[in-house]
């Protein structure tokens, strides 16, 4: 038997359209694996000891002077604390401008027929509740593996993903965290390749 400093603390599959709330301790590594490719994983980070100190997409973008996230990106909170760092990334870049889908924004973007399709913000509210994360605590999230090009002329589009089966991204917690995940069920745009698929979560701590 080999004794190592860290052990596999988490190994689970999140089905398409489902979610998870994961507690990651300081120094813990959480890997999200895009098992089938082109799957958006909507993710929020909270200081586990004070959920008002939460991930801030636009503070993160400003502090790194770049829109896309990848290895080395520091995930910054509303108080400018570093919550986590992206420490590995085989996909190449991730979005944090596009936000999460909701029933209401689907109606605005695609029409009334989408009103009762499942959406990420339903998943966030369902899995966040046990940690006290409600509507007021929902902030603008990261979309791991999602491709939202932003251009010098100020344009923004949702494009086919850059990801592929087995690509992964790994974050290392800079403090004790709640990581709230929605494996996006969106079927109205190419963010999930029109076909949402399962992801794997692996954790070491």
């Amino acid at each position, binding site marked *: 038997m080999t004794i190592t400093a860290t052990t596999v603390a988490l190994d689970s599959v999140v089905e398409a359209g489902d979610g998870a709330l994961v507690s990651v301790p300081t120094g813990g590594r959480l890997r999200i694996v895009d098992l089938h490719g082109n799957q958006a994983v909507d993710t929020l980070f909270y200081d586990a000891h004070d959920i008002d100190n939460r991930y801030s997409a636009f503070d993160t*973008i*400003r502090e790194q002077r*770049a829109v896309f996230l990848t290895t080395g990106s520091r995930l910054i909170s509303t108080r400018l604390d570093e919550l986590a760092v992206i420490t590995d990334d085989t996909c190449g870049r991730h979005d944090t401008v596009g936000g999460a889908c909701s029933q209401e924004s689907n109606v605005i973007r695609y029409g009334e027929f989408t009103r009762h399709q499942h959406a990420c913000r339903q998943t966030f509210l369902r899995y966040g509740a046990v940690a006290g994360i409600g*509507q007021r605590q929902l902030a603008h999230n990261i979309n791991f593996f999602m491709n939202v090009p932003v251009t010098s002329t100020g344009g923004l589009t*949702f494009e086919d993903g850059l990801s592929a089966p087995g690509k992964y991204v790994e974050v290392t917690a800079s403090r004790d965290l709640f990581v709230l995940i929605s494996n996006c069920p969106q079927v109205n745009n190419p963010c999930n390749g029109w076909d949402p698929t399962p992801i794997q979560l692996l954790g070491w701590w």
Partner: protein
Amino acid sequence: MNHEMPGSAAWSAPVRAGRTITLTALADGANATVLIVGADRLDRLNIPDTLKSQMSARIKPGMVLMSDRGLALATVVASTLDWHDCLTGALPDRLLLLELTKHGFGEADLHGCINFFSKVAVADDPRASLAYIPGHAHAGDTVTLRADQDLLIFVSTAPHALSDGPAAGVAVQLESPAHVEDPDLREEAVRALRLTRELIA
């Protein structure tokens, strides 16, 4: 109502549906960081939804500012500038937080803001690198919003987080015009306005 905010100040006010709010830069390099909360005091400005619904990475005239729940909060009916930053947030701002607190809100209600009068240019490189553009706004530049439901609006004149220039004042003018025509809008924005008018406005 006409109020001149000095630089590095914060202010808030209710704005009734149908009224307009005009911000005017009082000096070159002004910045007005704006947060908006809707009529039910829970539904907030949602920058990602606003941008993805209207295929834009900046705020410009002819856009509807949308809420978390897919309603129209306000329409940008006119501006002398066609680029207002909404990607780079604001530094923690004690005075802005106090304005939120006056209305019963707090840190949990902070959301993606608009930095009116500021531009942060996006490069066409692999990271979409950002560069603050000094002097984007000049004294006299304006932006006018029409409230599409009863709003609470929060304004800070702290300098943009990436600016090393001095703080500048911003004038705030609230008016009650009889009617404000919709500007040319994308179909998604028209849908948000229609739903808002059917439900609450």
